[in-house]
């Protein structure tokens, strides 16, 4: 009966109208003004959040000349060129306003002061014309050029793969070690009762309170003492024991029933086997969250690599990118291409993992 009532009520609802249908709430309920304000806010947010990055990516497909344009063009444009008989190089095309008010298309040979020598590409035999520059508009066409990327890879090609390799190495190795180390500790702290376990847990969680930047100098000293300055391991080792990871995994493992362990022990499984074959696979959701956090922060790390990795061969992508900015002050073409390349892997990861990342953080972030 309740269902029937619902249907009747639904029928009696006023039609939401066109705007209401587009912007309406789920379930077709009529939208009120707060919904429009909400959508307005979210759409504004969409522009502010995406436009800067989109702008950067689009700009990376512009020619160096196009990058200099002010006001900037929205899309990458290039000046049209045409090959004319008798000239080795292709000539740029211009739309020229004649005195009669007509517009004709000419190719420019060279520019002298306020005048330009032009030629009719369709009829090169007619000879050179002298045109006032003020009357000529370059013919421009939207064209995405990958020259910046090609130039980047040819001028700094080998180095860039080196930086990519370094970043990947740090991210992958640090994440694997983080997962194994943290889950081992979490296993010990959740599934055993032993003297000193509280002290160990406290010691690990106390490090939550110590910001990485506060211990910057002594961490550098220890890395130096271990002989790891300039080595990728010098960036990996200080970051692998994350207290949040241990905490998160421990909370998750506490929910795994102890009977499973007892049963395995009956079958003479060793403790390591229980950990590796039973606990780890069962903890995979928590492991995935820790992995995502680890990958994100290791790939994006800046301060620790900045002080530890002091030679170019060991630079990560982020360091190379930052140093790029100071080295090629004006080479925006290369800088934009490099920035896009650096942001790309995470952007792709984000598209695929978006739903999972945000809900994963939401479910673990408040603890």
């Amino acid at each position, binding site marked *: 009966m309740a269902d029937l009532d619902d249907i009747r009520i639904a029928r009696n609802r006023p039609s939401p109208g066109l705007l209401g249908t587009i912007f309406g709430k789920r379930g077709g309920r009529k939208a009120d003004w707060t919904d429009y304000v909400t959508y307005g806010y979210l759409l504004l947010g969409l522009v502010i959040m995406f436009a800067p990055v989109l*702008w950067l990516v689009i700009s990376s497909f512009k020619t160096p000349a196009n990058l200099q344009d002010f006001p900037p063009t929205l899309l990458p444009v290039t000046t049209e060129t045409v090959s004319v008989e008798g000239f080795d190089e292709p000539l740029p095309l211009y739309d020229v306003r004649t005195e009669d008010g007509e517009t004709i298309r000419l190719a420019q040979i060279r520019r002298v002061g306020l005048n330009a020598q032009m030629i009719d590409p369709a009829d090169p035999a007619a000879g050179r014309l002298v045109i006032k520059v003020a009357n000529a508009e370059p013919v421009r066409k939207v064209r995405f050029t990958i020259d910046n990327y090609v130039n980047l890879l040819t001028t700094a090609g080998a180095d860039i793969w080196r930086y990519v390799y370094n970043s990947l190495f740090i991210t992958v190795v640090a994440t694997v070690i983080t997962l194994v180390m943290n889950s081992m500790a979490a296993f010990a702290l959740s599934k055993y009762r032993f003297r000193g376990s509280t002290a160990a847990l406290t010691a690990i969680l106390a490090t939550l309170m110590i910001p990485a930047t506060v211990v910057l*100098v002594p961490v550098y000293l220890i890395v130096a003492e271990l002989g790891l300055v300039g080595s990728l391991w010098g960036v990996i080792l200080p970051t692998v024991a994350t207290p949040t990871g241990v905490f998160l995994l421990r909370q998750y493992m506490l929910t795994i029933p102890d009977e499973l362990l007892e049963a395995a022990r009956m079958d003479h499984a060793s403790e390591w086997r229980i950990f590796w074959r039973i606990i780890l*696979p069962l903890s995979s959701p928590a492991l*995935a969250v820790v992995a995502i956090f680890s990958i994100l922060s290791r790939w994006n790390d800046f301060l620790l690599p900045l002080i530890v990795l002091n030679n170019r061969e060991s630079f990560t992508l982020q360091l190379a990118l930052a140093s790029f900015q100071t080295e090629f002050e004006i080479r925006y073409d290369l800088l934009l291409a490099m920035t896009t390349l650096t942001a790309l892997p995470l952007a792709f990861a984000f598209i695929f993992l978006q739903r999972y990342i945000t809900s994963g953080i939401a479910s673990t972030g408040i603890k």
Partner: protein
Amino acid sequence: MTASMRAGRMLANVAALPARLIEPAMSRVQKTIGIKRMPWIFLIPNLTAVLLFALLPVFINIFYSVTGSDRLYPVDRPFIGMANYETLLDCRNYLQPSTCSRDLFWRALGNSLVFVPTQVVLMIGISLLTAICLNREIRGRGFFRGVFFFPVMLSPVVVALTWQWILQRNGALNGLLESVGLGGINWLVHADTAFAWAVAVTIWAHMGFYTIILLAGLQAIPRDVYEAAKMDSASHWRVFRRITLPLLLPVLLVVFVLCVIRSVQTFDELYVLTGGGPGSATMLMVQYIYEVGFAAQPRNFGLAAAASLLLGLVLLLFTALQLKFSRSARDG
């Protein structure tokens, strides 16, 4: 959950190969030391790393801050007592950095004292507003949630370079202003606008993280509380003041502390965006520590350590305050 399960299983499969080598070794270890001591075998790697790279450094830091010279190794460093702290805190007029022996420290401190409250208040305000919008029953909620989270994924360097590209003199923002008939400003060259953009860019980059946490907090508020309010036909504002805000308070406090700690530690974005400039208008505490301890020659590790301990002290104070607040909030 299923996506994560699959991801986890894949990781487990990749890791299975070395595991086959470890397992026999580990069972031999278990036979020699006994099952009682096995938890320590699991703990030792993590504890070693924690001790070496988190707990020990705190004590070394204290030692560093009371010693001088540019030598890295502790044995080479002569004890100089509180001299580093005295140098940092020595000022004739505390309101004028130029009268301090370490004027950059005071500039950085002053900047941080303006930067942190401004950023935290705006960040939490905007994140809360966004979370409330995302919590409404609207179309494309998942999509919008992703939109606001997206910049969190970007590296600070990419964030900084993106905005630098937009804010430069011939950048997109000035182009946009020009097209509506307004003159452009060299945003990152004027102290005030550079500082304002420093705040704005860091909010842009991190607000998604706090939005998601606040959203989770909002979704934990039971629906029927709102239904009851609707029965009493309470206004939106009243519902927000009397229901949403009080019930969200614990989450807001956590977000507040996370936000303060992150804000105090801001370095990467501004180092690339403005380099602390123009002059020292956007130099914050962490950059000061980096400049003194690592960038400047000779490196002054003692001064950097003293500055970072002062920074840590402030953070500790904040965390203690938060604990006190959340306890009193819980006790009613």
